[in-house]
């Protein structure tokens, strides 16, 4: 009988341990669910951690109002399957309430506005710990973040003053209006996620698989031609075979040319990729050297 757990099971064990540590020690935990592949894995791990009981945490989606319809349909179907309610925090409502101002112009995105919506929702629901599916291999600022990451009363991340994280003794203490962001998938890579999706036979939204779609080119990325994005003169839609490597807001998430129509083909493509998933698909990270760090300081995921 083997005494080793294997790569994916070790990652699973670690994530379940973290989920349970935080749920056991915080009063109002919430799991952020976008119906992207990482949060699909995260929700699956929460089910594994707490069944056969109801999930002892809330599930919330920050909806920019510019999400892919296929992804929203998937989100609702998955929640129904799990049998848990969903809290939706709406960026549109933040705009309507005057909490944030909609960006203007063809490059307008609601990506950055999400931070305000998220922090407002955390305050309104008195959440003191929010689980996210972020991974350290995604971005150089994320590579420096703790698994249990403290946010001050303004929701800000202070990268130079993080609690050291030692052994597997996770410090989940907060004071007053502070809260925790918790990243149980910190040590997973994009390839690990897909291998786990395959092993666990998890369903993912259809836009991860290659399909024919009207897209247009901008700044080296391919965007879906939708009413959410105003096209500049000369940005002519073309029909192409594409898939999405990340699932985010339609205004800042690019597609890649791909013919990967099955999980095996996605795995093959991921294993041989020469560009990171955010580099390949995210306009929001191309703004500056420390774009992610700056957003995270403001309370981003």
């Amino acid at each position, binding site marked *: 009988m083997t005494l080793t757990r294997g*790569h994916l099971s070790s990652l699973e064990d670690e994530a379940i341990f973290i989920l*349970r540590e935080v749920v056991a020690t915080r009063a109002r935990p919430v799991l952020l669910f976008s119906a992207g592949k990482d949060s699909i894995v995260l929700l699956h791990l929460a089910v594994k951690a707490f069944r056969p009981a109801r999930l002892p945490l809330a599930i919330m989606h920050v909806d920019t109002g510019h999400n892919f319809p296929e992804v929203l349909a998937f989100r609702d179907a998955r929640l129904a399957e799990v049998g848990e309610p969903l809290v939706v925090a709406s960026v549109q409502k933040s705009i309507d309430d005057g909490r944030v101002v909609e960006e203007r112009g063809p490059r307008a995105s609601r990506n950055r506005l999400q931070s305000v919506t998220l922090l407002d929702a955390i305050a309104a629901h008195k959440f003191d710990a929010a689980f996210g599916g972020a991974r350290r291999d995604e971005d150089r600022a994320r590579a420096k973040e703790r698994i249990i990451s403290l946010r001050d009363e303004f929701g800000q991340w202070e990268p130079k003053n993080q609690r050291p994280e030692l052994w597997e003794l996770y410090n989940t203490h907060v004071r007053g209006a502070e809260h925790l962001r918790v990243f149980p998938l910190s040590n997973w890579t994009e390839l690990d996620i897909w291998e*786990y999706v395959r092993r666990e036979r998890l369903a993912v939204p259809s836009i991860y698989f290659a399909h024919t779609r009207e897209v247009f080119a901008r700044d080296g990325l391919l965007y879906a031609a939708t009413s959410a994005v105003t096209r500049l003169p000369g940005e002519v839609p073309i029909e192409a075979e594409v898939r999405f490597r990340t699932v985010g807001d339609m205004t800042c998430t690019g597609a890649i040319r791909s013919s990967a129509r099955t999980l095996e083909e996605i795995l093959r493509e991921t294993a041989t990729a020469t560009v990171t998933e955010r580099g390949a698909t995210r306009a929001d990270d191309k703004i500056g050297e420390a774009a992610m760090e700056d957003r995270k300081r403001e309370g981003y995921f």
Partner: protein
Amino acid sequence: MATEQSTTDLLPPAPRRRALRCATAGSVDDGKSTLLGRLLLDAKAIMTDQLEHVEEASRRRGYARTDLALVTDGLRAEREQGITIDVAWRYFATPARRFVLADAPGHVQYTRNMVTAASRADVAIVLVDVRHGLVEQTRRHLFVTRLLGVAAIAVVVNKMDHVGYAYDVFAKVREDISSYLAALPLPGPIPEVTFFPVSALVGDNVVERSSATPWYDGPTLLSYLEGLDVEERASRGPARFAVQWVIRPQNETHPDYRGYAGRVLSGALRKGDAVTVWPAGLHSTIVRLETFDGDLALAPAGTALTVHLAGDHDVGRGDLISVDGEAQPTLSREIEADLAWVHPSQANVGVPYLLKHGTREVRAVLGAIVHVYDVATGAHTSGASGGLTMNGIARVQLRTADPVPVDAFATRRETGSFLLLDPASGATLAAGMVRS
């Protein structure tokens, strides 16, 4: 339990071994970023967009060469000041294995970051400049690595090209380091130490074997890391299971269900094992090892699962389960330990702290500081006149409000370690290693 097997033969299955966790220590001067850059580049773990980004950032700073440190130095302050201020985690894979690199900066807050990186490491990669040999910084690296009980140390003797690949210079460094490690006044087995004659710049013995060191017949650094066997260490020895959470659905399908969710910290649990629950000293038997994917007959170290015990007991979060007939933890309120202080505040004798051990938190008072270590030599400085401050390491005595089931850190890292927290702010103050 799901198995790690591919459903098709198109692509190899996920690795059977978990990723190897490496802590790297050394400074830019030792050529650390060059070494890491070479490992990452040669393993193709730096993506095109990341490399373009680093090249562009180097150009903007007016550097003559691409500075591979910018791959890991992700924070604005680090890029602005040209220093590494925090541990960075990098992930890379070769066909043989996956790796996690925890890269600790060489200078700033050195001890605190090195303790963090080393606390979870299977192997520490320590860089030495062959021209300078065993300097103070290397002594610090080695001391912290030994203190944290890292099982294997890979000493990369770098810049061999600067000494004409001379064997005797390499051998002298090897001898100095071996005797320094053997003389350190710390308990526990001396780790497995392996030395590599390397030029990170040229690439000698990092990924490719070097023709410049015909006298060296050992493996390259990468093939050593790929072959290192560390995984079963935690599964040997006595079982420890920490209860995290009690699952009680209390619904119609599960009216009497009561499961103890937690993780096997070390050893292995088997169905039918007679067990003791600490600190209460309750005796019971494991009737079921449950996971979402089905029941297990045996759960090795690391497994997250739900344990069911015979009988009706008061068991809850913070309890520790051991298997009868194996070595038992020591139930104690008086703990002698080595503390690595990681917070800007100073340690105060007589002040109540929170001690976090496993999933349990108890009040604890720092009774006395026995001695402070000189981190650069490993020697004890007499008394504690300077006190214990950030980045300091000391032998201390602690008194806890309730008994804690501890093991000696030298034999069981998982239950021989603890944190001290500030009860008011919740801040992490110190990392503790139980000595007796």
